[in-house]
């Protein structure tokens, strides 16, 4: 037990862990994380199996990386606790090691005699120390009086506060990982959806994209209403950098798009032989739309894509969500006879019309294509976040204490020697020793020769 404690109390272990965590973290930035198995096979060939079984492809969530972090946490706890007692006594304890010989070995020191009664000498020095914001602890020994003056005592605990903050952050990280719930909620305008893991719903009232004058995206704005049992509770605009928080859930604007699976469009039917003929029908994918003409009874659109491209395996795909190259697979029927079948392109109306049916007598124009915009909100309930912010505050405060609140300590021994009071004093400061030296000198100059 004792040796285990010693093992974890060692700063050498901390150094080893610093180095191991650093190296592991570097490795994780060299191997792309969380990709598909196929991508790893393409990248690493036969050794990809080894990568996966060593969890190198999800390294930061791997058993061994988390184990390193836990060891690091344990090491931090034990190191901090084992050094805390002596520090606490140094800062707040009443015990004073006030051997004048020891004091005279310090770098900042002084020794002089005052022709005053001991109580008056003590009061004078104590007053000077107090006016410089030192807190005094007084004790009486066989040979005289000892004053222990300390200020900025909390400065000793800077590193402890940083360590505590780091532990709270790590606890927050584990809490987020284990207890965090997040889900993407895609919503069309007007649509209401249950929030996963929550007892309320959200409705997207409106979604708009704002642009800068030169066309770059300025903002995505989702107007969202929270509903409890069907009744609206509050309405807010959710934007990137402006999440909505309700009952422990936060809603972030993460993505957007258009519902091209349910596009709306119009098809104009023309005849090559009859320039005067034109009939426009509005229709949906897969729906028979009557044209009611002697040459064409009805049309059907079998497929619609907003950004036509021939992908792998000669499959028609959409390159993007943007309507860059809208195309529709159109069939025209004359009763039971299919008179046209082929892709038509909104932006290239003359391209390819009639490739299947030879020189078709019919021509088509794809017009007024739109799709309902949708917004994707990320709904997150992350109980770890509170710990994270608390830990961040502690780390910041700890750094302030450690670097900018250096403790100072002055010990004064007053003894009666040959009818006078001999004052022996020595001081220690954790940082900025020159300013401390000048403060020390001023205090004891004034003690010797009061103005």
């Amino acid at each position: 037990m004792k040796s285990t404690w010693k093992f974890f109390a060692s700063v050498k272990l901390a150094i080893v862990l610093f180095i191991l965590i650093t190296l592991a973290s570097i490795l994780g930035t060299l191997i792309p994380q969380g990709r598909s198995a196929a991508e790893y096979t393409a990248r690493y060939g036969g050794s990809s199996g080894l990568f996966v079984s060593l969890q190198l492809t999800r390294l930061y969530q791997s058993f061994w990386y988390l184990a390193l972090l836990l060891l690091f946490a344990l090491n931090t706890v034990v190191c901090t606790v084992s050094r805390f007692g002596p520090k606490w006594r140094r800062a707040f304890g009443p015990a004073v090691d006030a051997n004048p010989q020891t004091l005279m070995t310090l770098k900042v020191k002084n020794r002089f005699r005052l022709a005053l009664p001991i109580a008056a000498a003590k009061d004078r020095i104590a007053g000077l120390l107090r006016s410089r914001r030192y807190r005094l602890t007084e004790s009486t020994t066989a040979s005289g009086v000892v004053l222990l003056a300390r200020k900025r005592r909390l400065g000793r605990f800077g590193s402890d506060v940083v360590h505590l903050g780091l532990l709270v952050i790590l606890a927050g990280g584990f809490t987020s990982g284990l207890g965090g719930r997040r889900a993407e909620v895609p919503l069309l305008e007007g649509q209401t959806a249950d929030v996963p893991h929550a007892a309320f719903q959200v409705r997207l009232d409106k979604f708009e994209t704002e642009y800068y004058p030169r066309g770059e995206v300025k903002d995505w704005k989702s107007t969202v209403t929270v509903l409890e049992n069907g009744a609206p509770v509050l309405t807010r605009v959710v934007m990137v950098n402006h999440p909505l928080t309700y009952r422990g859930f936060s809603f972030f604007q993460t993505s957007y798009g258009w519902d091209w699976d349910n596009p709306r469009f119009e098809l104009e039917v023309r005849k090559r032989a009859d320039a005067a003929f034109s009939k426009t029908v509005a229709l949906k994918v897969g729906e028979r739309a009557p044209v009611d003409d002697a040459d064409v009874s009805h049309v059907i659109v079998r497929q619609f894509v907003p950004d036509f491209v021939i992908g792998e395996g000669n499959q028609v795909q959409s390159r993007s969500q943007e309507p860059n190259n809208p195309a529709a697979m159109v069939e025209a029927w004359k009763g039971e006879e299919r008179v046209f079948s082929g892709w038509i392109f909104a932006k290239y109306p003359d391209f390819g019309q009639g490739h299947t049916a030879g020189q078709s007598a019919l021509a088509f124009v794809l017009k007024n294509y739109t799709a309902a915009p949708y917004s994707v909100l990320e709904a997150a309930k992350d109980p770890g976040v509170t710990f994270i912010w608390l830990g961040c505050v502690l780390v910041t405060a700890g750094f302030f204490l450690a670097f900018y609140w250096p403790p100072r300590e002055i010990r004064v021994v007053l003894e009666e020697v040959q009818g006078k009071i001999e004052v022996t004093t020595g001081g220690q400061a954790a940082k900025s020793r020159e300013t401390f030296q000048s403060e020390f000198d001023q205090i004891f100059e004034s003690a010797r020769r009061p103005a």
Partner: protein
Amino acid sequence: MTESTLFTIAFIFYVAALLVDFASLFARREKWARNGLALAAAGLVFHTAALILRTVVSHHAPFTNMYESLSFLSWAVVVALIVFGRKTQVPKLGPYLMLIVVGLVALASSPLMPKGATPLVPALQSYWLWLHVSVTLLGEAFFTVAFVSSLLYLAADTEEKKEKLDALSYRAVAVGFPLFTLGGLIFGMVWAYRAWGSYWTWDPKEVWSLITWFVFALYLHTRVVMGWKGKRSAIVAILGFLAALFTYFGVNYLLAGLHSYA
């Protein structure tokens, strides 16, 4: 005056400071070094004006692309030099830091860096842009001071010089490390949470900030608890700076991730 004119004037002052600094070093006229510092400070005035003008014209914080952030980083290094340069008795600090400043400004001015001010994408529209980037780069500027003094330590010949350089390196880390932690990691987490909905995603830039943080934590622990000083400390500080440099530059060009702005 336009922003680029002000920036060019600042550059000229920095080059003049560099020349005067090196002249004072080689001619062993320490009084000239004060003139070098004054020239750097004059350059800083014009540089500050250039940054303010760019902010006014673009309506956003002047660190949204590589040109802007290099400009701000070089500004921060000059600030760090002025903070330390007046008190410290290390004559070589000024010349070598100014060499880095002139290098950074030259890189910012090079055709590699597009200078156009583009409107902010939604993710960057936040006051955290100011806090996160400025405090982080300021921290990295102090790491640069630690780097230069550590290199000078390794090259120093006398014990007296070594002692001063070792102390300077530690003091620079003592300023840079809290700033980097606060700006880079803490403000970064707060902003990531607001913009992306998650305070930590193990994005390469985040991981490399953490690595940088670990190296400087190693520096402090080996020094304060294990009593390392001098050569070993200097090497750790140099490694820390290189990690910070990779976080700043390398990640953008070599590793893909969410953090693809600058």
